[in-house]
């Protein structure tokens, strides 16, 4: 078990920087999720920590040791790959025992460790099978078992759930979370799925273009996004973004000049930003109200999800979504009135996308 520190990491593959001057502290026994769109550098960052990619600049520390030049084998970390990377010619037992054999452990010790991990992951009946005779979920468990038997300082997961179907993904996600609580070891999990990030992480690193956009708890990332990118990336359906401006003392929609009742705090933010901003509000924070108490909108599409109903409409020329109670039975073409609680509204700078404090 160990903390992991990254200092001023720069990584380039010859072209533009994939990671730009990135620093990060991961505490001992913490479960941190790297999340971001494809190409944001999250897997590269993980591979740098694993020792599979050298850094162009900067320092990597595992515990108190600087590991820049330490080969992957001597970092005492375990990694679960996206497509599991099991040794196809070895049995499940062989896959799990391989690293222990290389360490020169006795056969009895190897057997104890492999069987303990197999029992923990419920893969004992498959120990004599080869990977090709296993389902995706079973292979995933074997990959985790191979990591667990090594008793590493940290576990690194590189999108390990992306090859599983939706039902299995949810199940394995819960198992990994439970495992992290059981093993109490530092874990870094890479995903592009914000649901995985929100449900598993102690802290989330939101990455975009090789730069950390926000590093905080899931609640903070969701409730107080640092910028428009984070606000748009975390949350499903995505946050609604509406251009607004200050007109006299009122905050109005830039598209059609309709006034929004948002209070002094937001007016002040808008004023400090030069009178223009992007308003962000999550679909669940757009609430149906009586006509005249909110902004009117005509429903263009209704998506009933069972527990909620998504209502699509245009607000001043911008597409928006509200999450409403299915009991309201909204219909396409119907005009509804919506209001937003000022405390649930975010204001972002039009140019930089940073949240307006």
């Amino acid at each position: 078990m160990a903390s992991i520190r990254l200092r001023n990491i720069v990584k380039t593959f010859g072209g533009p920087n994939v990671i730009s001057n990135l620093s990060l502290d991961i505490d001992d026994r913490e479960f941190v999720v790297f999340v971001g769109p494809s190409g944001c550098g999250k897997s590269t960052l993980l591979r740098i920590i694993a020792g599979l990619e050298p850094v162009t600049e900067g320092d990597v520390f595992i515990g108190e040791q600087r590991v820049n030049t330490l080969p992957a084998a001597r970092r005492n970390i375990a990694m679960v790959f996206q497509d599991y990377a099991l040794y196809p010619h070895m049995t499940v037992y062989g896959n799990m025992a391989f690293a222990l054999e290389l360490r020169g452990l006795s056969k009895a010790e190897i057997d104890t460790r492999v069987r303990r991990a197999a029992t923990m992951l419920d893969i004992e009946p498959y120990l004599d099978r080869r990977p090709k005779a296993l389902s995706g979920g079973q292979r995933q468990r074997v990959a985790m078992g191979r990591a667990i038997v090594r008793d590493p300082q940290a576990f690194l997961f590189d999108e390990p759930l992306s090859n599983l179907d939706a039902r299995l993904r949810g199940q394995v996600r819960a198992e990994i979370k439970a495992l992290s609580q059981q093993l109490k070891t530092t874990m870094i999990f890479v995903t592009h799925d914000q649901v995985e990030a929100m449900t598993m992480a102690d802290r989330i690193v939101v990455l975009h273009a090789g730069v950390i956009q926000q590093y905080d708890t899931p609640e903070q990332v969701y409730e107080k996004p640092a910028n428009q990118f984070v606000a748009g990336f975390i949350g499903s359906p995505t946050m609604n973004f509406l251009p607004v401006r200050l007109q006299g003392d009122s905050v109005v929609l830039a598209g059609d000049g309709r006034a929004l009742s948002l209070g002094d705090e937001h007016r002040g933010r808008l004023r400090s930003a030069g009178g223009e901003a992007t308003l962000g509000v999550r679909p669940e924070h757009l609430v149906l109200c009586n006509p005249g108490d909110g902004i009117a909108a005509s429903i263009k599409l209704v998506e009933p999800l069972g527990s909620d109903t998504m209502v699509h409409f245009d607000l001043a020329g911008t597409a928006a979504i509200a999450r409403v109670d299915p009991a309201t039975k909204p219909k396409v073409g119907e005009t509804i009135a919506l209001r937003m609680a000022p405390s649930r509204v975010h204001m972002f700078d039009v140019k930089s996308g940073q949240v307006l404090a």
Partner: protein
Amino acid sequence: MASLSRAASAQVIADDAPRLNPHSFQLAALSAPAVLFTFAMIAFPFCYAIWLGFHSFSATGHSRFVGLDNYRKLIGDIEFWNGLYVTFALYFLGLALQIAGGIYLAILLFNAKRLSGFMRSLFISPILLPSAVAGMMWIIILDPSIGLANYLLSLVGLPPSEWIASPVWVIPTIALIDTWHWTPYVALIVLGGLQSLPQNVFEAAQIDGASPARTFWRITLPLLLPTIVTATVLRSVDLLRFFDIIYIMTQGGPGNASNTLNVYGFKIGFEYFNIGYASALMLTLSTIVLGVVLTLNRLRKAVAW
């Protein structure tokens, strides 16, 4: 009632009977050239060779059915057993050198960071030479008096060798020449196998703490085994039928030291015109080749992952 039932069954059978597809004639006409070609090039010569193997031919060309006499004669023919020994000695030596060398060369080419295209072209160039040209070239190189080989030996203080003129050295020398000629072919096959291996398995081995040597023996080689067996099958067929370079360089000599079954069969058939006996010998060799290939195919299934 019973007759009704029988009539119904007859109707069902009539309905199920294969009907002539209106395109059947066209399909038959279109596939006929391929069928005829296969028959003319494979089935007919093979069947004819079997027929020849059961016959003896007089000088006037008249044939006589002799049953298994030609095969019985093989058992007592010392030249046949010598040919079998030479064939297998050359096979095992050549195969071991070519497979080991091919794997080594493939790994070198796979890891070549600079001029990889040029290196590949350079190393595979021996395959491009026709066997006749390669044989003539090596005759000159191995010439005991003017050849480069003995000159190189003299540079390192070793005595000159008789190479293909020596009954002891002729098999190793020919095996080395064939290795020079065909190792790049094995390397190309193994290189294809290496390039198709899942790379993250090697990263997993790296993280598991495997040294490069351990990675090779425990991961790379087992994963390459199906490809290596494929290369072994291809080289086995060629090595067991070894003919061209031997015929150009030694004609089976000195004495009968390089007289493989193929060369011996050729001599019997086309120099002594004992066609029936030569056919029996060639069918025996074909059976041996087939047996080796079938055994290796079973091995390929056993090492598949």
